[in-house]
């Protein structure tokens, strides 16, 4: 398959950036989107040009490194997959594909398609954990968890921290990301003890990082590669209200 690409190139944080047009030919429909970019990059390097920088690592949809806006969609067309899982067979031969980095103020561009998502780490550091010191814990089966709760906690815990929800949101809100963690821990008996402080501190940090508010557009859920449900945002709101009154 052949494609025309319009890719965002930006030298560094300060550079203004612009779209550059490229063409790739003879791409297998079974190739992944990133493998198609590999082909382009090899050609660029051969010509002595700088390849397109993008974050990636596991290439199986679990590490959360990859992420770009492809044809206006986070992680490209289709539902429930990260950029690295996207296969070229979903495009039509001859398509023009526009590729951009996540666009959100709290995620400054480092180079080309690589953005800085450390704001998400700082939110986690503010309270996204249960304070269980190594060794100072009870026997595992001393904490039974009803299966439905464990399952729902797992649904939330599947978040890969890619930031697509933020990029998809008109307000650059990180609510889905924060909700996934708050919900995961609030559903478990182990997480109940620190629930008040946790939600307050995470929300405070989220605001401090410059993420916007949730206005219920639900673009986050639609673009999340792990199909994290907005019902977790509802739980986050309940947790937050509960914390504010206590």
């Amino acid at each position, binding site marked *: 398959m052949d494609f025309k690409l319009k890719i965002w190139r930006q030298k560094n944080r300060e550079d203004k950036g612009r779209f550059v047009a490229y063409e790739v030919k003879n791409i297998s429909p079974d190739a992944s989107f990133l493998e198609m970019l590999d082909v382009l990059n090899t050609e660029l*390097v051969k010509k002595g040009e700088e390849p397109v920088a993008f974050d990636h*690592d596991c290439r199986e949809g679990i*590490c959360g490194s990859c992420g770009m806006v492809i044809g206006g969609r986070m992680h490209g067309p289709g539902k429930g997959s990260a950029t690295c899982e996207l296969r070229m067979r979903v495009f039509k031969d001859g398509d023009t594909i526009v590729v951009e980095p996540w666009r959100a103020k709290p995620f400054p561009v480092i180079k080309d398609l690589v953005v800085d998502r450390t704001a998400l780490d700082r939110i986690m550091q503010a309270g996204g954990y249960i304070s269980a010191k*190594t060794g100072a814990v009870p026997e*595992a089966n001393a904490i039974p968890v009803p299966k439905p709760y464990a399952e729902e906690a797992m649904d939330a815990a599947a978040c890969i921290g890619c930031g697509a929800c933020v990029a998809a949101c008109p307000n650059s809100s990180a609510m889905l990301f924060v909700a996934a963690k708050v919900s995961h821990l609030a559903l478990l008996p182990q997480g109940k003890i620190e629930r008040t402080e946790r939600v307050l501190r995470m929300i405070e940090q989220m605001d401090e990082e410059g993420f916007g508010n949730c206005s219920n557009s639900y673009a986050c859920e639609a673009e999340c590669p792990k199909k994290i449900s907005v019902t977790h945002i509802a739980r986050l709101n309940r947790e937050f209200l509960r914390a504010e009154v206590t």
Partner: protein
Amino acid sequence: MTLESKTPGGPIEKKWQTHRFNLKLVNPANKRKYTVIVVGTGLAGASAAASLGELGYNVLTFSYHESPRRAHSIAAQGGINAPKNYANDGDSVYRLFYDTVKGGDYRAREANVYRLAEVSGSIIDQCVAQGVPFARDYSGYLDNRSFGGAQVSRTFYARGQTGQQLLLGAYSALSRQIQAGTVKFFQRREMLDVVLVDGQARGIVVRDLVTGAIETYAANGVVLATGGYGNLFYLSTMAKASNATAIWRAHKKGAAFGNPCFTQIHPTCIPQSGEYQSKLTLMSESLRNDGRIWVPKKKGDTRRPESIPEEERDYYLERIYPSFGNLVPRDVASRRAKEMCDNGFGVGPTGRAVYLDFADAINRLGKHVIEERYGNLFDMYHEISAEDPYKVPMRIYPAVHYTMGGLWVDYNLMSTIPGLFVVGEANFSDHGANRLGASALMQGLADGYFILPYTIGDYLATAKFPPAKAEDPSFKQAQGEVEAMVKKLISIQGKRTAEEFHKELGRIMWEYVGMGRNKEGLQKALTMIPRLREEFWQDLKVVGSANDLNAELEKAGRVADFLELGELVAHDALHREESCGGHFREEHQTEEGEAKRNDKEFSYVAAWEFAGVGKHPILNKEPLTFEYVKPSERSYK
């Protein structure tokens, strides 16, 4: 070089307890005066850094990723072992110990393996307390499943994302310590050398991957938790950035490399489909619990799998190994798959695949049960292959997945460089010649949560530390060497990319140092690798600058190291005139095609010493003795 394993005496069940008591302690008030560097934030690194931070040490942790949570442990699917005996099926610490020593084909240190089994229960306790959402049954208690190489149900799991959930647990503990100020995290930094002062590891040299700055950091001890070297083969299930640079450069500075030829080929991966392919995707071997492996009985049968009747299928693992069936260990399953394909029974467009069929399990248990157990794996397979595994059997083929070899460490997890500790997959320790399923996560977390925090304390409490600062000449010198290498890589300005050299090296390794090895092939590899390395240093092309985010430059440095490590792996494979675990020498097999060990001559750890690039490495041996699990032919029949 002398290898002192420091294995404590006494009965095996008491060794770790006694040893722990004998370890010197650092006075709590003094802990923050000690700086410990931890490189890598996977399971081993994150758990070590978090635990050391909790103890009060001043911890500096480094990753080439933007966030600690991106480390490759995140991709582990299947599960983590612990002999809790929740299934009441007769499991015990001793049985896990026994299974692991046997599974490793009697090439691991008994005392280490026993300790691993002993602390594994605490890992589950720890992870549950952190909020890891392990699978549970309807009572609310933890659920278990069985895994290759074991006849008991001792594997804890979180859907097909166990590695992710355990890593996020360790990451949360690490985040808590970063917040508390005991751990400082340095993102997008790649370690390019270790700095020795008077023979002790006292710091590291890193490159800031965004600005290109070469920086040095000083400490009292350095911990490498940098993972395995499976990407040596180019195509593997490893993440793209996984590399051997940290351990290789430490090796060149004096750390012995243990059993480099013990590499693991995982039996259930999605087969390669084209030249453009950048990596292979693993399907957790937990699938072998419910999936049945088969090939057509007729050679070159091109019918669709569903139109091949039952009696014309060869469920070869069930046929050859009636008691373990589809659950034989990885090395056995991989070799048999290769053999089937070599003999012309392979399926799919390339003929390099076998079927993994769930039709029976779906009939027996219902689709929803299979979906609950393996839903995300099935989705992943569907996405990649465009085939629905609920309807057609999966096609699978073995791929490089894990490296049992790594830097040699003593019982305290310290390498042959004083002050340089190595944890997780980066060390050679507990898996011998073959790792059992669901044991990697166990080892990484055992090292990081429950072993290293004690043993490093003993070193810090007893070693002498002359002042060492990042401005000292020894640091400046190491920094200068790294800068020179970076400059050299950029200045060659040849024609071939690092990726092309990597692919070429991968082909040599897979062909001659892969699943089946023989003398002739290994010798061939030993002439081809140095030649390729020479071409690399003459014809490499790296574009862009050294003062910028430059993936080409990063790759080039890693490939340069692989080109040296590959030779060591081939040397080790050539010298080990026996077959054991993942190391299969075609000259040494039984009449039935099983691996034939040579305990008389090779019951030792080969700990190689670096002698210079292109020079024959120096072999040191740590003899292995088996007091408890007597070596026997590993039989899974």
